[in-house]
């Protein structure tokens, strides 16, 4: 299926571009963190230790006024006292407002983002690519119809539509058992993992249009290629032509678009959870929303760290997308998004 030439091009481009290497490092690390979250996270991301709340990350110390009030001969006297809060090695990245370990939450947040990003993209591709290929190949009324419907669904910003649909259908979260925990390989970690189901469906419903556009564009140019006519002359049925000629030759731009989509969907998911519309609290966006309240009182790290994690993964994925685009030159630029 993937011809040797494609692999050669990829390897050649990879050797030459430092950015591609950086991208690979970033993405592979995020994937490992997401998959083996239970082993990597030092603490259970959901356990709250109020005593240990708002600890700064290692290397930073925080002076914090704490107001204490006590009964002094009948009246209530409030005193504000300076208190230095030192970072605690048990929580390298500090703790959030409820004393939950930032590092563990960030690690589990990776799992949410990647799952939503990948599943959403796969779902969108499975819907969009076949429709696009068929519309481009047959043309005529079906093609017109698709293009008009694509325009209509582009008219709805994904974020707005997502919020609307989540508001309507609710946050149908899908609870999945965590394989490592249920297999007893690790203890003390949450045994189940909640996947924001509505977000994945909504994202698929909205983003399939980008895949349909790309697939249609490819099909339009491929159907006049002589090897397609030759296949028809050999007696190949339309489905054989679509399956064994059109799809393999259209797969390059689709893969590049897929990387763009995964990155875009991660950003969308974090926005949704920031606004409180995601089905799970174990998400980077949700942590940023929590951290927002602590900005004015000086606990900057609660909002900052999850944001850096988002950038880490999205930059990695975009670098992989650039590497694929430069190596395979699919000619799609600017398509895709949220």
């Amino acid at each position, binding site marked *: 299926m993937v011809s040797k030439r494609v692999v050669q091009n990829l390897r050649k481009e990879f050797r030459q571009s430092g950015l591609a290497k950086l991208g690979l490092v970033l993405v592979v690390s995020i994937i490992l963190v997401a998959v083996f979250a239970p082993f990597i996270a030092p603490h259970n991301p959901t356990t709250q230790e109020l005593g240990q709340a708002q600890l700064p990350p290692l290397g930073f110390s925080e002076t914090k006024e704490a107001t204490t009030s006590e009964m002094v001969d009948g009246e209530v006297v409030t005193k504000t006292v300076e208190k230095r809060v030192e970072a605690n090695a048990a929580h390298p990245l500090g703790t959030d407002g409820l004393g939950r370990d930032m590092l563990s939450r960030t690690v589990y947040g990776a799992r949410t983002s990647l799952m939503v990003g990948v599943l959403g993209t796969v779902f969108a591709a499975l819907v969009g690519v076949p429709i696009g290929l068929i519309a481009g190949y047959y043309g005529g009324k079906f093609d017109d119809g698709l293009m008009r419907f694509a325009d209509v669904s582009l008219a709805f910003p994904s974020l707005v539509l997502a919020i609307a649909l989540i508001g309507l259908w609710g946050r149908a979260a899908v609870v999945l058992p965590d394989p490592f925990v249920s297999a007893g390989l690790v203890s003390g970690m949450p045994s189940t993992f909640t996947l924001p189901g509505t977000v994945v469906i909504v994202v698929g419903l909205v983003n399939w249009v980008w895949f349909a556009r790309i697939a249609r564009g490819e099909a339009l140019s491929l159907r006049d290629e002589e090897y397609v006519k030759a296949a028809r002359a050999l007696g190949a049925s339309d489905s054989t032509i679509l399956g064994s*000629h059109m799809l393999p030759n259209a797969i390059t731009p689709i893969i590049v678009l897929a990387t763009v989509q995964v990155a875009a969907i991660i950003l969308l998911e974090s926005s949704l959870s920031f606004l409180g519309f995601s089905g799970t609290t174990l998400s980077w966006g949700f942590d940023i929303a929590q951290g927002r309240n602590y900005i004015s009182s000086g606990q900057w790290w609660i909002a900052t760290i999850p944001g850096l994690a988002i950038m880490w993964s999205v930059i990695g994925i975009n670098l992989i997308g650039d590497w694929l685009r430069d190596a395979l030159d699919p000619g799609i630029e600017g398509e895709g998004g949220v």
Partner: protein
Amino acid sequence: MTELDLGDPLLQVQDLEKYYYEQDSFLDSLLGNEARSVKAVDGISFDVHEGETLGLVGESGCGKSTTGETLLRLREATNGTVTFDGEDVLALDNEEMEQFRRRAQIVFQDPFSSLDPRMSVGAIVTEGLKIHGLPATNPDVETAVDVTVEAASVDASQVTATAADDLDRVVDPENGVARVRVTLHETADGLKATLDDHGELLGVDVEEAGDGSVTVSVEVSASDRKIRRTRAGRLLERVGLSSDQLDRYPHEYSGGQRQRVGIARALALDPEFIVLDEPVSALDVSVQAQVLNLLDDLQDEFGLTYLFIAHDLSVVRHICDRVAVMYLGKVAEIGPTDEIFEAPEHPYTKALLESVPRAEVSEQGRRVETLSGDVPSPRNPPSGCRFRTRCPQVIPPDGVELEQQAFRRVMDLRDSVEGRDINPDNVRGGTAAFRKSFFEMELPREDVEVVEEALGYVVTEDWDAAAETLRERYESICETTEPVTGEERHTAACHLVD
């Protein structure tokens, strides 16, 4: 090139038409612009005889490739009939189409777009076989095994040989029988039989019954895929490539080699008729010669019938038995190659032959009388004879004594008036001045009057009156009635002839 003993026609094309419709989308009808038809092929008739190579020649836009593809129903014809070996191809249902596909194939022009870059050469050549589930056994082909006995301990009479009846999937039958030779010989551990060829695809085993009788049975042991790949290997060798390159990809081949793969693909289904759509136009001269020789050899070896589409006349002269010259969707002239090249009847054919530069010293500095203007657009082809807007031998109506050069300019003037291509301001500077500059030569008095009158109308921008004045005097038979090719062996669609 076979002598002109025309076999019976394998393919008969009668009034074939192929129109494309523009601006007929839902929105266009809303906007009130009616669908315009592009008459790419507008009534083509010709026959192709068994074992013959018919050339289809013409410049770009004449509809030759569209004709080739419509014949094989790669495009749906608007109307007309195409009979292949007695059956009307355009009316075949899916079942019959499958049979037709095996008997008629096509080779394309561009070596870089005629092979799927994602498929290996082996997959490309065997695709046809896979689609038709070949190689399938053909019930009315018998299979036979000849055993030659070299083992001392066994005498021939004792040996009975059985052949599986699907041997013909591997062994090509000769006069109805798929025959395999096996030799029986003595080895250390008993009798052994070995196949002379096809060893890697067929299996043979030997049983010695108690009473000394020996049965040798041969059947197909290889998988379908293996059989197909072997067949593809043989085809590649036949077209001049090496059979151990089945797993290489098209981008590892040169242009000439890719065309050979395209030819091997067409041969895989063992067709009788092949449409060659400009097979060598994209190749360099030296490689072109190699492929042309190959096509020649294959035609003799497999008795193939070719429809050879091209725009290079010297290639056509070399390879075709008969030639049909096409212009703007119609056949201008058709006949045996030598007669067409040595005694062309249609003015367009003459102009084509005249324009081709010869690779000889005598060509140096040769000034060619070229056709005026450009090929008109097939959206609204000229009325009557389509070549009249560029024809150097337009027939003036009787009563008009103008030599060809002057009459040609009159017709050009009429076309620009009807197309409103003249800027009235240029004429306002004086109709006589404009006339003199338009006609380099002097016109007889009578014609000067008519032209001046028409130019007068142009000044007042009364285009219809101007066109009418000129049409009244100069309407030629070429624009009123459309010339048609006759039934003779060498015929041209031109009033000069009939």
